[in-house]
C-alpha cells in the first residue's frame, strides 16, 4: 500500500465530512428561528422609573396549577425600601386573550420593602403577565412582569 492510496482515503473522508457539514448547516438554516421572547427579568424599574421592583416565588419554584405566594420587593430608585405601598394586581395571558384564573392580592408586608402577593396560580403553560399598580409616598407607578411556563 503506497502513500498515495492513504491520501485517497483521507481525501474521501474529508469530502464526506464537508458534505455532512453542508447538509447540517442547510437543515439548521431552514429551521424556524425562535421569535424573541418577552423580557423575563425578575427585577426591573417601574414604568416611570419611580421604583425598582423584584418579583420572585416565595418558595423559589413555580408550580403550574398550584396556588402560590410570591414576593414583590419595592425599592426607590435610590435603593431605599418602599413602605406602606398600596398594591393592586392584574394580568393574564396576552396570547390567549384572557385574564388571571385567580385574583392575587398583596396580603402582608414583610419589612424591607417586601410584600407577599398571595393567590397566584398559573393554570396552563405559556406566556403570563402580572401587572402591579403601586402607590406609595413617592408617587404611583406600575410594572409588568412576564412569566413563561
Amino acid at each position: 500500500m503506497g502513500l498515495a492510496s492513504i491520501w485517497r482515503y483521507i481525501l474521501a473522508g474529508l469530502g464526506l465530512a464537508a458534505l455532512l457539514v453542508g447538509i447540517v448547516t442547510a437543515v439548521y438554516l431552514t429551521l424556524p428561528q425562535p421569535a424573541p421572547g418577552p423580557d423575563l427579568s425578575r427585577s426591573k424599574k417601574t414604568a416611570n422609573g419611580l421604583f425598582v421592583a423584584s418579583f420572585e416565588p416565595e418558595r423559589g419554584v413555580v408550580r403550574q396549577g398550584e396556588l402560590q405566594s410570591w414576593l414583590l420587593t419595592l425599592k426607590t430608585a435610590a435603593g431605599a425600601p418602599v413602605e406602606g405601598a398600596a398594591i393592586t394586581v392584574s394580568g393574564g395571558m396576552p396570547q390567549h386573550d384572557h385574564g388571571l384564573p385567580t385574583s392575587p392580592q398583596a396580603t402582608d408586608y414583610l419589612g424591607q420593602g417586601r410584600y407577599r402577593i398571595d393567590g397566584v396560580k398559573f393554570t396552563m403553560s405559556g406566556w403570563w403577565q402580572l401587572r402591579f399598580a403601586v402607590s406609595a409616598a413617592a408617587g404611583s407607578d406600575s410594572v409588568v412582569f412576564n412569566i413563561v411556563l
Partner: protein
Amino acid sequence: MRWLISVASLLALAALASVGGCGEPQFSDAEKKTIASLALNTLPSLKPDTTNQYADLPAAAALGSTLFFDGGMSRDGTVSCSTCHKIDRQFQDDLPQAVGVGHTNRRTMPLAGVARNPWFFWDGRRDSLWAQALTPLENPLEQAGNRAAFAHYIKKRFGERYERIFGLLPDLSAVPANASPLGSDAEKAAWNAMPTGQQEDVNRVFANIGKAIAAFERSIEPEQTRFDRFAIDLATGAAPQGDAAFSPEEVFGLKLFIGKANCVTCHNGPRFTDNSFHNTAVPPIDGLPPDRGRVDAVAQVEADPFNCLGKFRDGDESACRELRFMVKDGPQMMRAYKTPSLRGAASRPPYMHAGQFATLEEVVAHYSKAPPSMEGVSEVHSLDLSERERAALVAFLKTLSD
C-alpha cells in the same frame, strides 16, 4: 483497506439518514416532557382536607358510602347519589342531563379524582367536596329533600353510627319534620320559625352528612390506562409492550393533542384538566333554563353557609385560599364551564355540561371549527383540522379509556 471505505460510506450514510429525518425520534424532548406531565404516575398523593376532620376516617367513609347508595336520602325515597353517579359507569349516568326526582339542566360528572378539585359542579358553585355533596340533597330536581328531614332520618336510621363518628346528635324533638332555608314555602316558613340554635344544630348534622359522603368519595381515584403505560415506557426508554404500544394513528393524535390542536393548554396535568373555567362556545340547549355558567356561580359559592369561610369548616382559614382569591367578575366568566378530565371520557358519551355532543367526533369537530359563543367570548380559535387529524385525536382520546 477496502473494508475501511465500506465502513466510512456506511457511517456517512447513517449520518445522512439521521439528518435527513429517516431515523428521526418519535417525539422531541419538549414533547416527551409534556407527555410525562400527563401520566398518572405524576399524580401526587391526595392531600388531607383540613376543612373536613373526618375526611380520612374509615368509619366516616363507611357511613358516607351507605348514605351515597341510600335511596332514603331523598324526598320520595328512591333517589340517592348513586342514582346519577352509577358505580359501574364511572359514577356518571350516560344521560345528556341528570334525572333525579326531576329533570336537571346539567350532565352528571364522573367522580374519579373528584377530591382533587378546587371547585365543584360544572360552574364551581361549591368549594369543597362536602359542601358539594349537600347540594343535590336539597335540589328539588335531584334528591329534593330538606335538611330537617335528613337530620331526623339520620337519627332514626344511623343514629349510633353517626354518634360514634361525630359525637352526640342534638335534641331534634322540637325540630319540624320538614324545614330548610332552600325548600318549599312551607319548609322555608318552618325553618324561619326555628330558633337560631336549633337551625345551627340541624345545619351541623347536615354538614356532617356531607363530610361523611366526601370521606367516601375521596377513595374514588383515576385508574391507569393504556396512555399511562405508553407514557411510562416513553419516559424510561423501554419499548412499549402489548397494548402499551401505540398505533401510528394514536401517536399522531397524541402529537396533535399536545401540539397543533392545543388541547393540552387546558387539559393539562395527570388529570387532563387545569381545574379552571372557560367559555368554549358550547351552545345552549333549547328548552333548558338560561345557563350562564361561572358568572352566576360566584355569588352562589359566596352565599353558601357551608363554604370554606363559614362556621362548619374544620381547621383554620388558611385552607380557604381558593375562595379568598377567587375571580369574582370579568367578561371571561360568561358561559365559562369547568375543564373536565379526559380520563375515561371516550367511554362515557354524551359530552359537555348539558350533553350537547353525542360523540367525541362531534366534540373534536366543535373545537376544530371554533364557532363564536352565543354569549360572552369563546377562548377557542379555529384549527381547521383535516378529517385524518380529527380521527387521530379521537383515537388518542380512546387510549385514556382502555
